[in-house]
């Protein structure tokens, strides 16, 4: 065992908390190594110095003061479970407000222009004006005949213009 290895187990050896195998290893090393033996002895003396510090006693009013503080603690009540925590309540309120805002958002974007009375009458009139044509079935059947008309052909020979003076004259 090297000096660096023994250092970790030295405290356990001195406070008698090391197991038997660790103790044996440290003892073997201390027998062979004078510097580690000296260090162990100095640590033992430091250990004794630390014992010189006296312990302090609690003041006479310590217990009474603590009991007073405990008595002043708010007692848990049965309805406390139903009272929401501030953070939770704030989060829920925020979520609710956001939901309402999002639901209302499309309606707000739709532009609803109020129709004036004149505009309304004009639209009604145009609808009534075309109503007779749609109800007259004969007119609709004649519209079919129009589709059978031959469209003017582009191949027709061009008629000579009469008003143009001939070159023979």
């Amino acid at each position, binding site marked *: 065992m090297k000096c660096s290895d023994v250092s970790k187990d030295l*405290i*356990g050896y001195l406070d008698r908390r090391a197991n038997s195998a660790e103790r044996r290893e440290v003892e073997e090393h201390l027998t062979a190594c004078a510097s580690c033996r000296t260090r162990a002895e100095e*640590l*033992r003396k430091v250990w004794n110095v630390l014992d*010189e*510090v006296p312990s*302090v006693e609690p003041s006479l009013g310590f217990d009474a003061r603590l009991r007073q*503080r*405990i008595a002043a*603690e708010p007692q848990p009540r049965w309805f406390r479970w139903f009272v929401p925590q501030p953070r939770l309540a704030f989060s829920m309120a925020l979520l609710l407000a956001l939901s309402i805002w999002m639901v209302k958002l499309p309606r707000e974007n739709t532009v609803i222009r109020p129709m004036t009375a004149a505009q309304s009458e004009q639209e009604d009139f145009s609808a009534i004006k075309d109503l007779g044509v749609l109800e007259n079935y004969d007119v609709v059947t004649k519209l079919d005949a129009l589709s059978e008309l031959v469209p003017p052909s582009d191949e027709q020979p061009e008629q000579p213009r009469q008003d143009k003076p001939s070159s023979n004259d």
Partner: protein
Amino acid sequence: MMLDVKAGDDASFDLLLQKYRTPLINFLFRMVRDAATAEDLAQEVFMRVYRARKQYTPSAKFTTWLFRIATNVALNSVRDNRYRKLEISFDASTSDEEDAAPRELPAPEMRIDEHMVERDRCDFIRGVIASLPQKQRVAVLLHKYEEMDYGEIAKILDCSESALKSLLYRAYETLRGQLAPLAGRAGEGRLS
């Protein structure tokens, strides 16, 4: 006992208080080096235990849980106090070290000068312990004065047992260097 407290038995809480208040106050006093602050912090630790009694689960030893709370409370206090001292250090005219030490009555057989020497010696030792890095200080206090096993201390400090052994060795090596002047006398005293 804590399970009885959890079940609503106030008498068990009193028993816990009687059993742990002195070691807890001593641990906190060695951490913050101020008797009044140590008592205030001990009150805070017990209040936290009381408030958390319904949520307590016996996954670890009660002392591990208790001293873990105490360690957090003490380290927070040390950190806050350090900032406060930085703020008032320009105006401070007297050392607050004397005010911080508990009033210890001299032993009847001890002369007043002997008592003063003894008190200076204790203050010096406390000062050396307080000068250790926070984690090392907690480890030494729990190991030396509370006599906790390595597993418990490792859980409180949230480290492995191997890391704790290295931490303790470094801490005791620092103390060996710092307390060397006193260790000679202590060694002589013990040998004679």
